[in-house]
């Protein structure tokens, strides 16, 4: 993005190539983003060393890196990451499939909508973490519990956004499809569903975020494996470097998921009419 900056050069001053280069570097958002992170880490490292604060409270970035390498190397963090990812995405995938179908059904059937509206209004605003105790009573703390909690996180935003997307479909497109001989089922699958995809994807963004939060939170409460369990245990035994290491893995997961979604978003350009 090019934002015009006020021109500083007044008549008479000479060109300063070095300064110009530094300035153009500072105009690059990636340089700014990564550079500021490096600066913060350097500041952290230096002040921690100079003040001699205990690693129990605030480990230095270099100690965290060592912990991270250790945990990935022999500490089984890769397994925990895998377990957590599986829990998140398995439940999320079921929610995506079921939520899209359910949304399509709600949006196209007056009666289904009337019924579903009540349930959604009652259940959507409920913080899903509050369901953890009940789900443990019902399902225990194993795989089905984790799958359900991830599913519950994602299903509501996906259903709601599918309904929204289908309802906002241009009626002219439906009419055109009918005119070309499409059956109601074909209209659903080939017009309503594709026209709702950008909206469904907005639901996916929201839903996946909630799934991640819920799975990690559930792991902290009951898990023996997974990133959340690892985080909680490390905190219990005051392994602060390990706490930070897990947080960094979670942050990295967030970055990867967000960038992936941005890429998919960009590829939805064909849905734009103009």
């Amino acid at each position: 993005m090019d934002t015009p900056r006020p021109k500083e050069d007044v008549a008479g001053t000479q060109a300063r190539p070095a300064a110009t280069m530094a300035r153009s570097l500072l105009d690059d958002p990636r340089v700014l983003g990564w550079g500021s992170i490096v600066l913060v880490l350097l500041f952290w490292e230096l002040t921690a060393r100079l003040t001699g604060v205990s690693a129990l409270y605030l480990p230095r970035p270099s100690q965290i890196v060592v912990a991270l390498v250790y945990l990935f190397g022999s500490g089984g963090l890769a397994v925990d990451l895998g377990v957590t990812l599986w829990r998140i995405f398995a439940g999320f995938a079921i929610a995506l499939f079921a939520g899209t179908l359910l949304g399509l059904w709600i949006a196209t059937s007056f009666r289904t909508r009337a019924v579903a509206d009540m349930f959604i209004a009652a259940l959507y605003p409920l913080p899903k973490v509050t369901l953890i105790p009940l789900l443990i009573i019902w399902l225990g703390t194993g795989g089905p519990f984790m799958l359900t909690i991830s599913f519950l996180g994602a299903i509501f935003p996906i259903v709601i956004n599918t309904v929204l997307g289908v309802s906002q479909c241009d009626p002219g497109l439906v009419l055109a499809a009918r005119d070309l001989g499409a059956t109601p089922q074909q209209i659903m699958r080939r017009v309503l569903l594709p026209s709702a995809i950008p909206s469904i994807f907005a639901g996916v963004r929201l839903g996946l975020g909630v799934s991640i939060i819920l799975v990690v939170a559930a792991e902290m409460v009951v898990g023996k494996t997974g990133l959340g369990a690892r985080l909680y245990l490390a905190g219990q035994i005051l392994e602060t470097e390990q706490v930070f290491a897990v947080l960094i893995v979670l942050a990295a997961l967030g970055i990867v998921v967000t960038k992936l979604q941005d890429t998919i978003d960009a590829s939805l350009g064909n849905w734009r009419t103009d």
Partner: protein
Amino acid sequence: MGMPAVAIEFEDIGLTFAPASAAPTVALEAVSCRFEPGKVTALIGPSGCGKSTLLQITRGFLDPTRGRLRFVERSDDRVTARPAMSTVWQAFNLFPWLTVMENVAFGLDVAGVARAERDARSRRAIVAVDLTGFEHRYPRQLSGGMRQRVGLARALVMEPEVLLLDEPFGALDAQTRLVLQEQLAHLVETSGTTAILVTHSIEEAILLADTILVMTARPGRIAARIDVELPRPRSVATTRDPGFAALFDRIYSLLRDEVMRAMVSGSEGA
């Protein structure tokens, strides 16, 4: 495609919208007319006179509240089933997530036509509307005129016996409209299809139609039926024909009164 043989007859057709929460609106009142097979009939009239409603009834998307719609075999006057119809829309209504080729092939695809035949027919339709080389573009990458040519190809590829044109050039600029009118006139003349053209443009009606039905302001009725005897092929040059000017004036004077009426009753209704 053989010569179409089915005439469309409106007998005393009326349509009243009666929503539960508002006063009923009479959209059409006692419309009787006949659309001849293989001919282009233009419907012209003030905004809101029910031209498009008439088209929707013909297509079977709306049921009239009175009167009857009949499809009649030309040879023996027997009543027959609704012939194959396709519509070209003012708003184009192209599927934005499909390419030009996929848009054109949509109707054949949902009908289960095999891929090879589907592709061949779609390609022919794309050639007919002069869009060769744009098969893999998306609608948003095309100009308005090109989009409507896709709309035309998408309708023509179905080889309809009746082509319904719902203000097909209403959303286009004047120059594009002229060029497309000429192209459409040519396509309709060569395909020999029955066509019903809803339009606001007197010029468009004269250039394209064999018969022009002038409609009254709401509630819509047929005010006049005018045959256009100007020779074909017609083009922009036709507009300089003295016969064109005479027709134009006649239709304009009919329409003027109706438009004035529509404006007055419109302001009363508002």
